[in-house]
């Protein structure tokens, strides 16, 4: 018998990941794609942090009288990953602003049409 609560976080992480993936591949709007990328990244964070949790443990800050701590390593990895996420988002948004300036649209299909028109054949 499969333990539903024990796997719940993994399944939510996968569901979020797939919502994000679907937004990235099927929404033509570039901002929406970036939002999808953000959701995908958070899903990865959820996977890591879930694995770091120890039942009955506390936050990994040493205090006298506490014996069980959750795993600090996933926290460290994800802490830096969050800041990298905002960095990639900022660069992505800057690119979108420049694309809008250059081509007048941030919808992928319109941009593809423009590119097709402008390609010298």
């Amino acid at each position: 018998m499969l333990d539903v609560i024990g796997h719940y976080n993994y399944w939510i992480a996968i569901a979020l990941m797939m919502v994000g993936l679907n937004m990235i591949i099927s929404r033509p709007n570039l901002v929406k794609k970036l939002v999808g990328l953000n959701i995908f990244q958070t899903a990865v964070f959820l996977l890591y942090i879930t694995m770091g949790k120890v039942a009955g443990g506390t936050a990994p800050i040493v205090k006298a009288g506490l014996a069980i701590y959750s795993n600090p390593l996933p926290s460290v990895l994800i802490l830096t990953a969050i800041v990298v996420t905002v960095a990639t988002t900022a660069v992505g948004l800057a690119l979108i602003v420049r694309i809008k300036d250059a081509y007048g649209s941030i919808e992928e299909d319109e941009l593809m049409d423009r590119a097709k028109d402008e390609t010298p054949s």
Partner: protein
Amino acid sequence: MNENVVLRVFSKLLIPFILLFGLYVQTHGDYGPGGGFQAGVIFASAFVLYGLVFGIGNARRVVPPRLTLILSASGVLIFAGVGVAAMLMGGNYLEYAAFADGTATGNHVGIWLVEIGVGVTVSAVMIAIFTSFAGRPR
């Protein structure tokens, strides 16, 4: 938003406390939750609030873009410099134990210095990114 007196007065009251909280998070990161990454973002958010309420032109006068550029580079240099300093004091690169003969004290000093480098870079970069986006003509 420039005419709204309540917002202007209230954010003027709020900004010093945000900056103070940023400093607390920066220097207290080794004892509780916090550290350079969070403190940098909190510091930058005070600037963002100032920019939203008083206009980006005024905000740019408070922290000139050239300054954010210099600060964002110097944060990385502080971090890398701590590593080099550890080498000069006889340890390996980023081996903070070399700062003091007692391992724990040296590590504490090293972590504190490195976190300052992280905080400086993160806050300067966040301010620079916000200024770049907000100052662009529509």
